[in-house]
């Protein structure tokens, strides 16, 4: 079965060494997804696979037979941005923008995790449902580093969309 990226099917690469990140950028030509560290440490490569956010640098493309990948390009377009894309623009949730695609993919999946009641390290009672405080947003987004330090505005953008959703 092919691998689907933003609903478009692609044949798996012949060389098993190709990471999902390199496949997205080079084979699919979707350069919105960024390579920061290539070692799972920065989150710039975050994409959504079958509804879950992952670091695309630490997985092989050949391991994604039949999977559905969503990248920043699949979330919205400049004329029809997603709610989070719009909120990042309005709140200035970036400076250089390098981490932004990963931040937005991550935040998109994070709002689904909250809606599904998943706990985090910031949740006082792991057996109960979490409430989306700023502390929860920061903990849940800790896998996305921002060298420019746009964190307060990133949290503000996410808070706004989360508030609208709840």
């Amino acid at each position, binding site marked *: 079965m092919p691998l689907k990226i933003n609903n478009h099917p692609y044949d798996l690469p012949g060389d098993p060494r190709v990471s999902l990140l390199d496949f997205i950028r080079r084979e699919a030509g979707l350069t919105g997804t960024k390579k920061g560290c290539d070692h*799972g440490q920065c989150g710039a490569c*975050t994409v959504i696979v079958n509804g*879950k*956010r992952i*670091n695309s640098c*630490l*997985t092989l493309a050949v*391991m994604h037979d039949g999977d559905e990948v969503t990248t920043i390009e699949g979330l919205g377009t400049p004329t029809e941005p997603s709610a989070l894309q719009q909120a990042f623009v309005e709140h200035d949730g970036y400076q250089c923008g390098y981490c932004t695609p990963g931040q937005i993919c*991550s935040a998109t999946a994070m709002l689904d995790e909250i809606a599904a009641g998943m706990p985090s*390290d910031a949740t006082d009672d792991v057996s109960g449902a979490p409430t989306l405080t700023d502390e929860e947003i920061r903990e849940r987004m800790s896998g996305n580093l921002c060298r420019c330090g746009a964190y307060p505005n990133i949290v503000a953008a996410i808070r706004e969309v989360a508030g609208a959703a709840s």
Partner: protein
Amino acid sequence: MKPFDYLRAEGLDLASQQTAPDGAMAIAGGTNLLDLMKLQVESPDTLVDVNPLSMDQIADEGDGLRIGAQATNTATANHARVRSDYPVLAKAILAGATQQLRNKATTAGNLCQRTRCYYFTNIDQPCNKREPGSGCGAIDGIARLHAVLGTSSECIATYPGDMAVAMTALDAKVEIANGDGNSRTVPVRDFHRLPSDTPHIDNVLEPGEIITGVTLPAPVGGTQLYRKVRERSSYAFALCSVAAIVDMADGRISRADLAFGGLAHKPWHDPRIGELLVGEEPSLALYDKAADLLLEDAQGYGENDFKIPLARRALTATLCEATGVEA
């Protein structure tokens, strides 16, 4: 990354045979193995993808719970019974890595993750674990992350994970299949080994053995805590961590199952600590004695000397929180 053959596992016994030869390795989430392959710390010539074996179920087993080898860390931490009956496990997992990594990280991969020693991950440095006989760079070098308990003159690395520390406190068991249709069970407490003079061997898995799951015993209740001390408040490995299951009856401690991360080559469990605490009234003096026992043979290596007082304070703070003693 060096070239390798990629095989999809087509059955447990076959996967076991395929991973048995030198140079062949299982891959699950890939979050540790691919990281190390990019650094050429690991250079397998064959990767056997165990994901097609679908060992990801989490299901009741008697009064306990069986967690499949490939259940993701997210699935485990989010499981209703883990959250209500084994909260120390949910907390330990959630204290590790990030949501993106936990979405890929698996039970088996997490148990088998390798040390974060900076000499181990840099192929230009000496390291007995990576290259037996080449020496240990850390022992007289940068050793902030390193062990203070159970070290050897060959290696002072730590097992870096969080999940297994909680599993050690819970006395969970690892289920291992060996390819002849047979399987064995090893307590998590005995799964990782001390470095001794063979630091290249992290755990008791033999070539070709595949982890199929981890079973948790019937829930024991009590107060369950996971305290992780690290350089920043999220997304960092433990300098020291404490998993605690503590219960009280009639003003006395009736249960104290404790395990420690970041201090040794394995999640550290010292049965004498539970024996000391159970039956006693909680007090700071008692917790000090528990820390004396824990750290009786502790040895620092310069940069990590701070871990000895840190472990004492982490243990005391955890016990105080669990028993309502003013710290």
